[in-house]
């Protein structure tokens, strides 16, 4: 996999999972820092995006600081899974939806501006699917999200 990435691209991924410049021309700022030029840096990012390595360049918000959110799980019979998962994914309030190998086999994150919005979404999902939503909100987080430590081998 990594042989398709240039040394510059590896360097960008290692160095800019946090601290992406907030300057008016951030790619030019990065170019100055790594001894390149703006056009090459932008091309390197565009290529990462095209090849699927880059999900996005974006902000990661602190859980609980912007609106409200909670992890939730549901037990769905295998025969209904496709249909139920599709219904849940259609809610714009759902931003992750995973099938996992467990009795509780559907795991999703519900977001909303306020706690009341979450409650309304839970009620709507239960009404639409006929299954109970088990809420698994975060009580404490033990890891500061600093990005992901990729092993280059």
């Amino acid at each position, binding site marked *: 996999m990594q042989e398709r990435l240039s040394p510059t691209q590896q360097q960008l991924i290692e160095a800019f999972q946090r601290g992406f410049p907030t300057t008016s021309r951030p790619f030019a700022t990065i170019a100055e820092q790594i001894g390149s030029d703006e056009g090459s840096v932008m091309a390197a990012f*565009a290529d990462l995006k095209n090849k699927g390595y880059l999900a996005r360049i*974006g902000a990661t918000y602190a859980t*609980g600081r912007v609106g409200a959110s909670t992890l939730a799980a549901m037990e769905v019979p295998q025969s209904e899974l496709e249909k139920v998962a599709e219904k849940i994914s259609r809610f714009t309030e759902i931003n992750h939806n995973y099938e996992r190998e467990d009795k509780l086999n559907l795991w999703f994150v519900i977001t909303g501006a306020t706690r*009341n919005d979450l409650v309304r979404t839970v009620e709507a999902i239960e009404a639409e699917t006929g299954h109970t939503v088990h809420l*698994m909100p975060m009580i404490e*987080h033990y890891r500061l999200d600093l990005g992901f430590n990729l092993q280059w081998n």
Partner: protein
Amino acid sequence: MNNPVPVPELDEIDEALIRATQSGLPITSTPYGDIGLGIGLSPDEVEQRLQRMLDIGVIRRIGIIPNHYQFGYRANGMSVWDIDDDRIDEMGETIGALDFVSHCYRRPRHLPEWPFNLFAMVHGTSRDIVEAHVAEIRKILGDTVHDHRILYSRRILKKTGLRWRKSKERKCCE
């Protein structure tokens, strides 16, 4: 739930900016300026507001969000643990500091079916590697742990960035 009251530290313009950036910055020479255009903010104002949200901790980081799958991290195991309540903070801090754990949270039990109160997300290039990592966690937790399980993801059915909009906007659907 995490946050029972609306957050007072953000105004409506911050909220508009959050919505405008949730799918990511464009790869253009002036991405902040381009985002500002869409919501009527000057480039300077976009930068100042983002910087302020970073400073007060609302934004944890701005940066590259890699697609782990594409990098070969195909196995994603959510390990869940039933830990003594009086030891959980100490254990959570220890497990959260491991470099193969990307997220580590305390969550409520749902007894009797769901006794697990600590979640640690473990990523690896194969299930064997995830299992070796989980064995390492098991060893660290020692006699504070009563039961554990690994829930592998079978399919990603939906994954987007932060989805957040005003309370009164329509509920469903895309």
